Each structure stands twice: as C-alpha cells, then as structure tokens.
C-alpha cells in the first residue's frame, strides 16, 4: 500500500519557529502546560493542513440536487459563487481512548543527542493526547506498566478527569536518569522476555480483559521485546475489537548506533553488560534492529492495527499529528523517490 504523501506544510512544521520541539518542551514545567503547548501547536498546524484527524468532523461539499434538505445549503458559498452546495457532516460518536504507557527501565534511556528520555517523550505525548481527547468530550484512560501493570486510571470524559490523568502521568516521571553506577550496582533482575509472567503479552492480555468496551487503544513503548510476544499480546486487544495504535518510542541512537570509541554497555533492566568495538558491530546491530522493527511493524499491520515509530528528537506536535493521522513514518524516513 502506497504511503500517503506528506504535504509541504506538514514537512515544514519542523522548521517553524513555533514547533513544539522536545528541547522547548523540556524547558516547560508541568505536564498540563506541556500538553496544552503540544495540542496548541498541533491545532495551529491543523489550520494549515488540508488533512483532518479521526476525531474532527469531516466536512465536504457537494452540489445541490432536488430533494436535498435546504438547511444544509452553504449560503456563503452561494453568495460568492451563485451556486448551491450542501455541507455534509460525519456523525460524531463518543468513544473511550485507552492510553498504555510503558514505564519500564528501558524507557528511561536517553542518548547524548536527545533532550529527553523515551519515557518523558511518551509521557508528554500521552498527556497531549489525553488533553486533546478530553477537550472533545471523549473519554480517556491510562494504564502504566513495566513487567506488570503498575497503575490504572479508567476512562472518563469529564473535563475534571484531566487532573488525575495528568497526575498519574506525572508520577511516572523518574526523579533522575539512570546512571552507569545505578545499573552496574543494581542486582540483576529478570530479563523481560524471560519474566515469569509473559511480559508485555501478559500486560496486554490483562488490559484487554479489563477494557470490555470497544475503544481506541494507544500503546506507547519501545517494544524491545520479542516481536512474537508483543504480537501475541496485541491479538488480545484485537480480539476485543479495539482500534489499536502502536506507538514505538525509540531514541535515534538506538536505531543508528552512532558510537565509535570502544564502549562498555550496561544493559538497563539487568540485561548484563557488553564490552565491544561499536564500529565493528554497528552493521550487525543495525541489521538486527531493523529486522526486529520490520517484523514487528509487519505483524502489527497484519493485525489491522497501526504502528508508528517516533523518535525522541522529533517535534512532539508532529509526532502527535502523526499519531492522530496514523501516519506510520516521517518524511525524513521515507525512501527517496527513484
């Protein structure tokens, strides 16, 4: 399936002075302020965009034909063009959005080039998404998890629901980043894929069990697990007829592995340590990473879900826009036309 073209305005959003970049956002305090900034940036961009999101009433014009209800005639257009056009509106329905946020240690990684951790980035996106949904009087809920489900906030559509929603997100922000010393001195923990439980698959199964009502599920995670387990968990959501958007949040360094000097890597989540020459391993690493990425994306799409890859150095409003439009890749990652 051909990827939708990106408008010029959309790609230019990155360079706009008002773009909500991670650097800008990291200077703001308070998740509510951040969420508002993201959403406002997103809405500002919306005015310049011909595309519409899933929760916006889609309007279209068609020529009047005898028998049509006159109350839908767009008189302004008639005044300008002396022709009859009808405005058409999609029927709006209230829905519940379940936001799933991975708060495991691996989400606390931040490379030197990035201004925020994956968790911070995911948290900000979740906050903005919740803010936007609640502004539309739709319901939003939040579930945080690592190996297990840690916190749950059932969906609600009252405007006052924003406060507990943001408060729960605020609680996920760690006081400081994990250092090498923290990781090196920490007792080896159980590797996620080898957890006694089923890891992310178990978490998703639990989420599916607790959210009977059909709705939108947005999963924020780096998904550094076995793709098969992830897909197995997603199948539970699919079984419940949920509309699922998988947002894979990664740091660009995790994809490009841009290290040159000999490095001792300390795995987060107690995954051991490795001393190696990054230049010699880079190609193999990237190959492994891309293979896992492709496998996961293909599997997710086969389940009829949307899979988006966002990187922590991308503007948050752009990422939010992509989530809302279910745009799987950014213009930068799209292959050049041959």
């Amino acid at each position, binding site marked *: 399936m051909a990827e939708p073209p990106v408008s010029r305005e959309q790609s230019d959003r990155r360079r706009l002075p008002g773009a909500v970049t991670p650097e800008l956002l990291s200077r703001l305090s308070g998740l509510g302020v951040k969420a508002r900034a993201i959403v406002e940036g997103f809405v500002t961009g919306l005015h310049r965009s011909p595309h519409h999101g899933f929760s916006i009433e889609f309007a279209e014009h068609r020529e009047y034909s005898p028998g049509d209800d006159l109350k839908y005639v767009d008189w302004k257009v008639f005044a300008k063009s002396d022709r009859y056009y009808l405005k058409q509106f999609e029927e709006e329905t209230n829905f519940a959005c379940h936001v799933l946020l991975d708060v495991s*240690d*691996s*989400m*606390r*990684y931040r490379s030197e080039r990035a201004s925020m951790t*994956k968790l911070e980035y995911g948290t900000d996106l979740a906050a903005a998404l919740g803010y936007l949904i609640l502004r539309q009087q739709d319901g939003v809920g939040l579930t945080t998890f690592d190996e297990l489900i840690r916190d749950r906030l059932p969906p609600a559509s009252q405007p006052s629901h924003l406060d507990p929603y943001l408060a729960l997100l605020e609680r996920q922000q760690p006081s400081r980043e*994990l*250092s*090498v010393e*923290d*990781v090196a001195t920490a007792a080896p923990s159980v590797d996620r*894929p080898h957890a006694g439980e089923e890891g992310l698959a178990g978490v998703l199964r639990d989420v599916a069990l607790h959210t009977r009502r059909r709705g939108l599920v947005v999963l924020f995670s*780096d998904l*550094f*697990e076995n793709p098969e387990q992830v897909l197995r968990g997603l199948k539970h959501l699919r079984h419940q007829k949920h509309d699922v958007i998988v947002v894979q949040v*990664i*740091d660009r360094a*995790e*994809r*490009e*592995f841009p*290290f040159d*000097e*000999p*490095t*001792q*890597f*300390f*795995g*987060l*989540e107690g*995954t*051991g340590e*490795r*001393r*190696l*020459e990054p*230049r*010699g*391993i*880079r*190609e*193999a*690493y*990237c*190959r*492994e*990473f*891309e293979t*896992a990425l*492709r496998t996961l994306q293909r599997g997710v799409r086969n389940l009829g879900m949307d899979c988006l890859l966002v990187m922590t150095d991308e503007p948050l409003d752009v990422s939010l826009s992509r989530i809302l439009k279910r745009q799987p890749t950014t213009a930068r*990652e799209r*292959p*050049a036309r041959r």
Partner: protein
Amino acid sequence: MNTISLLAFGFVSPFLLWGLLLAGVPLLIQWLHRRKYTERVWAAMRFLRAATESQNRRLRMESLLLLCVRTLILLLAAAAVAEPYLSSAMWTPRSPVATHTLILLDVSLSMQATVDGRTMSEQAREAARKLVQAGRAGDSFQLLTIASHPQAIVRQPSFSSIDVLSEIDRASLTESWGDVPLTLNVAERLLHEAPTSGRCRVVIISDFQQANWRLEDAAAQERMRTTLDRIARLGALSLIPVGVNEIDNAAVHSATVEPPLVSIGAPASILAQVHNFSSHFLRQARLQLLEEGRVLQTQTLDVPPFADAGAVFVTQWNDPGPHALQVRLEDDSLTADNDRWLAVDVRESVSVLLVNGRASTRRLEGAADFVDLALRPLLAEQPSPGLMPRWTIQPKVIGEAELSRTDFTRFDVVFLCDVPFLDDDELARLEAFVRAGGGLVIGMGDQVPLDEYTRQLGGRGEGLLPVQFVRIVDAGETPFQFGEPVARHPLTQAFAGNPRSGLTTSNTHRYVEVQLPDDSAARTVLAFSHGAPALIEHAFGAGRVVLVTTSLDDRWGSWALWPSFLPMMHELVKYVASGRTTQHALVGQSLRIDGPDPEAAGQTATLVRPDGRTSVLRPSRGEPPVEFIINDTAQSGVYRVTLDSPTGQTHVVAVNVDPRESDLRYLSDAELQSGALGATRVERPDRSLGSSAEAAITSGRADLAGGLLLAVLVLLMVEQTMAWNGRYGLVALLISPLLVAGLALAPTVALIVPAALVAILAAVRIARRNTPPTASLANRARR
C-alpha cells in the same frame, strides 16, 4: 674454495633494524586501548547481544588481523629503512618497461686468468651474452670495455640483440691495465648521450681486481666513488663479479739491463724480478732468457709468498743494433705476465752534443770545454789500439748560435753549458728530443738567466725540469763540497763509499740555489754537504733531464779539475742516454718514433707487431719534425719500426704488460660496498656466481626496500579497509600480495593505482559517514 650460495640476504643499514621495536607500538596501544572503554547505559541490549553473538568470532578474528596488519606495517617500514637486499642466483628483477642497459665489460689483462679451464674473460662474455639474450623487445644496449683505453664498442643504443651479441664476441681482449676511473667517466658520458626514456641500468662485468678498483690515491678513489654515485643515479647499478677470491699467480714484473747503455762487446746484466702474487711458496720456478725465440740462459727461482725474487743473466753482444730480449717464467694461471720484453740497442758509439754557451778561442775557457775533454780523453791522447774501448762517445761542440740549426735527433745526449738563451722553437725541439728518449744535461754558469730558465724549463710543472731557479749562491771563503753520494742511484753508485774518487772533496765556490715544488716530479740525486741540491734529475717522456747546479767548467769550482769529474760525465752520458738505447712502454701506451730526417716530408716506416702483422706507418703530422706514433699497443711484445730511408734504421720497442694486472686479488663484497663504491646503492655482488657464467647472468641483487615500502603502502590501504569494513578488509588482505607483485612490476602504475584506491576509499568512507547507516538498510528493507 668458494661455496655456491643461491640466496643471500642482508641489510645495507643493519643498525636501523632497531626500528623493528616499533612493532611493539600497536600491541602497546592495543593494551592501553583495552583499558579505555567508555561506559554507557543501554536499553536495546537484546539487539546488541544478538549482533555480538553472530559477530563475536568474526570480530575477534578481524581485530586480531587488524592488529597483525598494523604490526606488520611497522615491521616492514622499519625493515625498509634498513634497506634489505636479497641476492639470488635464481632470480632476476624484471621490468615490463623497456630497459636500456649499458654493459661495462672488463677486457683487461687480469681477465685472461684461467679458473677451472676457463678464462674469466670467457665467463664475462658469456654473462654479457646472456644478459643481452634475456632482454625483451624494445630493450637497448650499449657496450663499453674496461681497459686502459676504454672503447665504446656499441656507442649508440642498439635494439638489435644479434648485433650486440656479435660485438660482445668480437670485443678484443687486451693485455692492458683496466683504467676504472677513466672507464667510468666514459660510461657516464655515454649515459648522458644515450637518448633513453625508460628504465636504465648499468651492469659492470668484471673481476673487480683490487689493483683496479682500490686506488692508492685517496683523492682519486673519492673521485671514482663520486662518479659511481652519479652513474647509480642515472641507472640501476649492477655488479656481476666473475673472479674468485684469489688466484695463484707469479709474474716477471720487471726486466732491466745494466748498464743502461749497452756497448758492443761489453758484458751486460739482465736483471729480472719475479713477484709471487699468491700465498703459496713458489719453488723451483724456471726462468729463461730468450732472444728471438732462442733460449740463451735458464735459471730456477724460489719465490716466497707476496715477495720478490731476482735473477741476473749476464750476456754480451758483438753485433751492434737493436736486440729483442725476453724473460720468460713458466706458465701459470695468467700467462701473459710471465713474459717480460726488453729492447736493447747495442751501441758502438753515443753521440753527444755539447752546446757551448760561452765560446772562447782559448783552450779550456769555453763553457763546454771541460766536458768535451772529459768525454774524449782517450781520443785526445791517441792511445794504443789495445786500450781503445769497442764503443766510443762522440761529442760535438757547437756554439749557442748554432742551436737553432741543429737537429737534436741525430744525438743521444745534449749538454747545455752556461747557455744564456733558449728561444721557444729551440725549447720545443728540446722537449720533443727528450720526450722521444733523448738525454739532456744542463750546466749552470754566469750567463744563465735564472728567471727565464724557471719559466721555460718549469712549464708550470709539466716542463723539462719543474724546478725554480732562485739565486746564485757564493761560498765566500769556505767552499762548498758535495755531500755523500747515494749508493742506490746509477749516477752516484760508483762514488758511494769511495772517498778517494774525489767527488766529496772537490770544491765549489758558487752554485745556483734551486727549489723543488712539493708536487714536482724532479728529485735530488746529489746534494752539497749543507743540503742544497747539486744534481737534480727529472724523467720527461722516455728521456731524462739532469741539472747540475754548478758550472761544468772551472769558473765556479775546482770539480772540473778533479778526477771525479771525468767518470761523472761518463756516467751522466750513460744514464741520460739510456732512454735512447732501451725503449720500452706499457701496453696501451702510445709509441713515438722520430723520423730519420725531420725536414723531409712524405717519409714512411714499416711496423712489425709482436704477432707478426705488418703495417705501413705514416708521419703523425705533415710538418717537421717528422715522427711516427703507434697508438694500438694492446699486445705485449716487441714492436719493430723500420724507417723507409736509405739508412734503413730500425727501432725496437719493448711493450710489456702493466705489473698491477698480475695481482689477482679481488675486492671482497664488503670492500665493494664500503671501499670502492662507498655508499652507492648497488646490486649485491655474488662472488660465488663467478664460477658459473650461467649463474652469473641470472644473479641479481633485489633491492627489497622499494618492495617493502610498496607492501607498506598496500597494507595501509588494507588497514583502512579493515577498519572500515572487516569483510572488505579481509578481501583486500587476501589480494594484497597480488597487488604488491603487480605494482612492483609496474612502477608507474604503482604511483597511480594506490593513490586512486586511497582516494576512492576515502570518498566512500566520507560518504558513509554523512549517510546514516540505517537509511541504506531501511531502503534495502523496503526494496
């Protein structure tokens, strides 16, 4: 006995091998490097683990290979600085480009030495032939002989190997001395003249005899070394030695006749000196004296190693004229130096011209009167026939004014007695006379212009008598007396130890102070008791000049009145006339024969060479004085020149080999490097190859420094490739030997290909740095 070594390896600068310690640097860096890991936390350990598990062994191998390559680079670079070489009998460096080769072929006498039934000359020719045969299409050759007169047999570069081979076969072997400095100068000139554009090399095929290649004069040796350096810069210099370490040889290295002036019926002694040039004692060596092929006498000699032994043959002749003698030693490895030739002109009389610078009508008042009286005392007193010697001195006195009209060639000796003036023509004729073997005695007197004599006779060190006439010294009240005569000199040996001869007791009141410049070839024969020179001699051409610093009459002393004066005058005549009566030369030297009539044009002469070949000689120049010059004296023996004149006068000249060629000791490899050739980069000579011409031609010294540097260059590229991509690096490492070999065979490509490859690699690397690796992978995945 030499052993044949097919492979020899060494270093020109072995002390630079300390650089090999640099090989430890990568290991040290690696060791230090291991301790400097950057620590960082990492989330995506799953992929890192998967990547390392698949890559770990390969990475370790690549890391090890990279370390080896880096170490090897330093090792090779250090070894290259030490300039290693490989000398192999089985390997000859070849070049795909056209090569111009200048072959210096030694044809000197020592090349006639026989080893295992073959002469070294044959080996050298065979080596030269194979060198030419090994050439490829487009190769050119020049051929130059090493001899006293180097001959460019193939002067212009020849592309026809057949012609060059033919010339090698026809290159005549000489018995001359190998004048290496002169040959090298000619070689350098030839290289400059040769219009070559490709690779150039100079191959010297010689026995590298010490006598030729190790010069006694340090300055000359340095000049030769400089010349070799210049030649080595013009082309790769290769040496192919064909000599072995040492060959036993003995030679008759001198044969003289005593007295020098041989008179009819008088006994003459033939003094022969045999030198043993080997480390073995030469016992009962048979030495023969022959005349015209007829054995006159035979003696046996014992000659210690590296020492001389003398033999004396006493004989006499009853018929006047030239006689050709031959002293022969029994055959050994070099036969040409076993014969020594001697030409003896047995005289009935000696003609002496006395130039009287101060004429007088009164008896014994003229400047030459006492000499005239001394040279013919018996004639003056009309002795009885029984006391008459069978040979006579026939003096003729002329005035100074007649000098310009007198033909000196009719005389054997000329005395200048207090001659006040010599014009340029007279001086030139006197020089020609002495150069041709005549004797000249110069006596002082009041009329002698000292400054003029200094200028005319000195001739800036190259004249008849290179001395400086300073001033006339008066004795005052105490007369000067001659000092003790030297016993070893023919002129004074009769007076040495014989005070009653009256030489040391005669009084001299005045003499001319003479200074001998440091570089003067003149030497003092007899001095006054206070050290001032009294008799000075100088060899000029084939003749001799003797200066008497006092007068030859009684004006400046009483010597002319004393008994020693008469015998001294006779000895003087015999001594200075010897150049006239015993003509000899060395092989390669030109012979000069005066014509019978200096004024008559169109005269010819007949030359009979030692091998019996006859040719007609024509005067060397059309104007008087007439002289015949023989330049081709490549063969030792007797050269007879019969003048086509009514008198039919015959000149006999003995031409002998240069004794230096008899010493068949050769420069060792070390000496070739450090002594004669200095720091010149040469192909390593392999002495053992001399025993086999076939081996000699295939020998060559491989200068490995260039190859090593080439390998370093290639390995640097391999290292870069390995650092960039291990698999590509491994491929580069596998093909690197082929690359080095290919580049070694194509030097011009060696400059272009590595540079292009490095540029391409650098461009690719820069391009890859600017492109995220994931982009290409993502693209590939999408495709």
